[in-house]
Each structure stands twice: as C-alpha cells, then as structure tokens.
C-alpha cells in the first residue's frame, strides 16, 4: 500500500490568510473535489506539479510558499 507523502504544505494557513477561503472555494478554483483539497492538506495525497502551481496561483505566492520538502526526506 502507498504511504502518505512527505511533502508538507501551508494551504490551511494560506486559506485563512486569504479571507478564510473555504476548502470548497479553493477546490472550485483549482478544478478538483473538496475531498482532494482535504487529502492534500492532510498530507494524504501529493498533487501533480501542475495542480501545485494552480494552488500557488490561487494564493498569488511562489510554489515553495505553499509546498515544502523537508531536508533528508
């Protein structure tokens, strides 16, 4: 069975910093289901590079402000 990703993210913090955006609103803007946003936030799903850029674009921040890959991971 697959293991959850080691990629961490700041999506939850960024949503709250952007007018308390809901998961449903972010999902709508990215074009995925709310469950996919939940899975990404909880580290249960690694988004594709394209989806990662789409999420960063919604928040108008660089990719590495949304996602991080810890040293030694």
């Amino acid at each position, binding site marked *: 069975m697959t293991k959850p*990703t080691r990629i961490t993210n700041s999506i939850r913090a960024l949503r709250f910093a952007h007018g308390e955006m809901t998961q449903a609103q972010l999902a709508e803007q990215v074009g995925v289901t709310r469950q996919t946003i939940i899975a990404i936030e909880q580290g*249960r*799903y*690694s988004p594709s590079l394209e989806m990662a850029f789409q999420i960063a674009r919604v928040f108008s921040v660089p990719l590495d402000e949304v996602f991080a890959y810890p040293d030694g991971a």
Partner: protein
Amino acid sequence: MSYEEKGTWVYLVTCVAAYGVYLAIVIGRAAHTPVAQVPYVAVLLWTTGASIAGSIAGRVLVETASPSGRRRSDVRDREISRFGEHASRWFIVAGAGAALIMAMARWDYFWIANVIYLGFVLWAVAGSAVKLLAYHRGLSPAR
C-alpha cells in the same frame, strides 16, 4: 466522501452481492445435479446484468440520499482508479491463465467459465478495496 468514492462503494457491494446470489443458486442446483452439468449460463448472465443495473441504480440512490458537491472525477480520482486497476490486474491474469490451462486439459466448460468469472469478480473486488484504501490512507504515486 467524493462522488467517485461513493461509486466505488456501490460497485463493490453490488459485485459481491451479485456473485453471492450466483454462487447460492449454482451451489443449490449442484445438490441435485453433477456439478459440471449444472445449468449456469443464464444465472451468470442475469447476475452480471443485475450487477451492472444495480450499480447504476445504487449510484443514483446514493446521490439522491447524499448529493455530492461535484459529480465529475478529478485528477486524484483518476489516479486512484488507475492505481486500483493496476494493483488488482493479477486476478484477471490468474483467471485467464487458469482457464487456458483448464481448456488445454479439456476440463468441462462449466469450470472454465467459472474460473474466468471468479477472476473478474476478484479483480473487481480487489480493485475496489485498493481504491477505497487509497481514498482513506492516501495515495502518493511518486514514492
């Protein structure tokens, strides 16, 4: 729960139920008839058809009772679907391989048809189970 995850649950339940009904009928008939002579074709076709119809009807019922926010699959649903079908493909291979060997050994059609049917059922059940595990425990195809 997403639209596709609900659909996977419905598919799993209908597959297991249809095969259970099939086995119950065929085993019931085998009590009075030699196994290889049990009439199975109509039951197999009817339970397969009922499984497809039940899957569609079940999905409609589930969506009526608990509507999904979005009724289209997204990239994660498609990755999970591919992962589940890839992980469970060995049941199809095993069923086809067993059927080939049985045909070469001139087994009765009953056994050949049933080993193929069992392969399809196990493929569907294992694929659904893997998909549901991926929905709950996570999917990270890059690792």
